[in-house]
C-alpha cells in the first residue's frame, strides 16, 4: 500500500513555457486563444459579480478567482450533450457550457430563474450543499448507461467535499457499475477557513478513488491545457464504457471564500502571493505572446470584448424585474394542490395590501 503511485500532469509551466511538446489537439493557436478567451471572460464575469455585491446589487457570491483554468478546461472538452453537475464555484465551466452570465447573476442575485438555463438545458443547477450533488451525477450517468447513450456526467466539487460521505457513496457506485461519470475535485487548498491538510490524511485527494476501485490522478489545475487534456481523456474513457475517473485539479482560491468572508482572519497573505505567480491566465498569455505573437492590441481588444459582454449581461440582470411573489407556487408541483391555491391567494392578497397601503 505504500507504493501508491498517483499520476500528475502539467503541460504549460507558470512562465508560459511548455514542459514538453503540447499534445496535437492543443498545438494550434486557435484552440489556445479560445481557452484563453474563456478564462478572461470568466475572470471578467467574476470581477463584475464581486463589484455588484459590493454595491449591494448581488447577493453573497463565491468568487473563482485563480481557478478559471479548471472550469474552462472542463467546459472545453465536454460535449453539449454531456451533463455538468457543478458545485457553487464553477461559474467558468457553466459559462463555457453556454449558461448565460445574466442567468448566473440572476441566480446569485436571488432569483430562481437564473437556474432555468436556456443553454445546456440538462445541466444541473449549482449545489449549494457541499457534496449533495455527487449522487445526482451518478444517477445521470446511470441514465446514460441504461439508454446506451455515449454521454458523460461531470461532477465537480471542492477539496472540502471529499470529506463527505455522499461523495464517497457516489464514487463507490460509479466504480461498481462503471458509470460514465468523471469526478473532478477543484482542490483550491481551502474549504472556507479550513485548509486542505485539515480535511484528510490522504496524501492526495486523487487516491480517494482507490476506495471506490477506479483510477484517480492529479493535474495542475492552473494549467488549462493540462486540465483539458486530462479531463478530455477521462471523458473519452468514460464515454467508451470504461467507467469513472477522479481528477484532482491543484489550484488555489485567490479570493475570500465568498463576498461576505474575510480570508485575512485565517490565512496569511504570504501563502497567497506565490499562487499569483502561478496565475492560470498569465501563463497562457505568456505562451501566446511567445508563440503566436499575441499583441497588446489583441489583449486590449479581448478585454474590451469581455468587458462589454459582461456589462451587457449585468445590465440585463439588473433590468430583470423580480418575479411576482406568487411565483413561489409556480413550479412547486406539476399541478398545484388545492390547499396551496388558497395559500397562493393569501400571498397575492398580502402583496396587494402592501402595494395599496
Amino acid at each position, binding site marked *: 500500500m505504500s507504493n501508491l503511485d498517483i499520476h500528475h500532469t502539467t503541460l504549460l509551466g507558470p512562465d508560459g513555457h511548455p514542459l514538453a511538446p503540447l499534445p496535437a489537439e492543443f498545438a494550434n493557436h486557435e484552440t489556445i486563444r479560445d481557452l484563453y478567451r474563456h478564462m478572461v471572460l470568466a475572470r471578467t464575469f467574476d470581477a463584475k459579480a464581486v463589484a455588484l455585491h459590493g454595491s449591494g446589487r448581488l447577493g453573497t457570491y463565491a468568487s473563482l478567482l485563480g481557478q478559471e483554468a479548471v472550469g474552462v478546461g472542463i467546459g472545453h472538452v465536454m460535449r453539449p450533450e454531456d451533463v455538468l453537475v457543478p458545485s457553487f464555484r464553477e461559474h467558468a465551466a457553466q459559462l463555457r457550457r453556454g449558461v448565460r452570465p445574466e442567468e448566473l447573476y440572476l441566480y446569485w442575485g436571488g432569483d*430562481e430563474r437564473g437556474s432555468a438555463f436556456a443553454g445546456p438545458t440538462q445541466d444541473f443547477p449549482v449545489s449549494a450543499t457541499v457534496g449533495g450533488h455527487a449522487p*445526482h*451525477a451518478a*444517477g445521470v450517468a446511470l441514465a446514460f448507461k441504461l439508454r446506451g447513450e455515449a454521454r458523460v456526467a461531470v461532477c465537480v466539487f471542492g477539496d472540502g467535499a471529499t470529506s463527505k*460521505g455522499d461523495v464517497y457513496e457516489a464514487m*463507490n457506485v460509479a466504480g461498481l457499475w462503471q458509470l460514465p461519470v468523471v469526478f473532478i475535485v477543484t482542490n483550491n487548498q481551502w474549504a472556507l477557513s479550513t485548509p486542505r491538510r485539515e480535511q484528510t490524511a490522504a496524501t492526495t485527494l486523487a487516491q480517494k478513488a482507490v476506495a471506490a476501485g477506479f483510477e484517480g490522478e492529479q493535474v495542475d489545475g492552473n494549467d488549462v491545457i493540462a486540465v483539458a487534456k486530462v479531463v478530455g481523456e477521462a471523458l473519452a474513457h468514460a464515454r467508451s464504457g470504461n467507467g469513472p475517473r477522479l481528477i484532482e485539479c491543484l489550484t488555489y482560491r485567490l479570493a475570500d471564500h465568498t463576498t461576505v468572508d474575510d480570508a485575512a482572519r485565517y490565512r496569511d497573505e504570504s501563502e497567497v502571493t506565490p499562487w499569483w505567480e502561478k496565475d492560470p491566465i498569465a501563463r497562457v498569455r505568456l505562451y501566446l505572446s511567445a508563440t503566436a505573437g499575441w499583441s497588446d492590441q489583441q489583449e486590449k481588444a479581448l478585454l474590451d470584448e469581455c468587458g462589454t459582454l459582461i456589462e451587457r449581461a449585468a445590465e440585463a440582470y439588473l433590468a430583470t424585474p423580480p418575479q411576482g411573489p406568487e411565483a413561489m407556487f409556480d413550479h412547486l*408541483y406539476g399541478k398545484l394542490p388545492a390547499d396551496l391555491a388558497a395559500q397562493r391567494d393569501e400571498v397575492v392578497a398580502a402583496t396587494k395590501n402592501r402595494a395599496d397601503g
Partner: protein
Amino acid sequence: MAEHTLLEAVNLALRRALGDDDRVLVFGEDVGVGGGVFRATQGLMQAFGPKRVFDTPLAETLIAGMAIGLAAQGFRPVAEIQFMGFIYSTLDQLINHASRLRTRTRGRLTCPMVLRAPYGGGVHAPEHHSESTEALFAHVPGLRVVIPSSPKMAYGLLLSAIRDPDPVVFLEPKRLYRAAKEAFEDDGEGAPLDRCLVRREGNDCTLVSWGASMKETLAAAAQLAEKGVESDVIDVCTLKPLDVTTIVESVARSGRLVIVHEAARTAGFGAEIAARVADVGLYHLRAPIMRVTGYDTVMPLSRLERHYMPNAARIQAAVERSLASD
C-alpha cells in the same frame, strides 16, 4: 376478481408500472434477486431484467440521490428504503434536492421519483425497524406523502405515485402487508393523490387515521357501533396534500374529532389535522379534539410495543370521552 394482500398489491402495481412505462425503474437494497425483505419486488427482476430492477450498494443517501439524477433525466425511479428507520439519511436529498429541483430550475428539471418504505410497528421487528415518522416528510414543501391502508388503495395509490410528476414518499404499513386480502382488478387504474377516503359512515363522531392504525380505528368504530355510536372513519391516504375538506365536512356533522396515529404524538401529523380543524372547523366542534397516538417515547423494543401503539380500546375510550364532553 382475484384477492390480494397489500404486499401483493404493491408488487402488482410495480409490475404494472414497469410493464406500462419503460422509464420506470425499481431499485434499492436487496430488491433484485432477493425480491425485497418483505418480497414486495419478488419476481420483478426476473420479469423485467436487471436493467429495470436492480440492487444497489448499501447506501441510502446514494439511493435517494441517484433517483434524483435519474428522474431529472426522464426516468421514473421507484426506489425502496428497506425500513423507515433507515430513511433518515435520505432527508438531506429529499429536503434540499428532490423536493425543490422543479422550483429551483423553474420547471426545467423535474423529479418524478417515488421513495417507498415499509413503516410502523406490531410485527415484533428488531430495533429501529418499527417507527412511524411520516410527519417529518409531510412538513417538506414540494413532496407528496402517501400511505395506503388496504390492498386496493395500495395498488391505486402506488400507480398514481409513480405517474405523478413530482417526488412522492410512499409509506407502506408493514403490519398490514399480509393482514387481509381484498378483491380488486389489476386494471392499471390509479387512485387520486389528493383525497381522503371515507371508510365507514356515521354521524356521532369523526375518526381520522391512516396506514398502520386504520385497522384498530375501524375495529374501534365497529365496537362503538355495537353500542349504538356511529362514526365516520376517514382514511387520510395522502398526508400531503391534505384533503381537509372531507374531514371538516364530517366534523360539521359529528361535532367530534378523534385522530389516531401510531407515530409519537408531539408534532405528529395528527397535530396538523387538529390545527386545520381548529381553524376552519372550530365552530363545528362540540368536544375537544382528541389524539390517540404513540407516546412521545422511543418506540420500545418488541416486548412493550403493544403498549405503545394505539389499540381499539384506547380509541374507544377517547371517543367515549369525546361523547361525554359537550
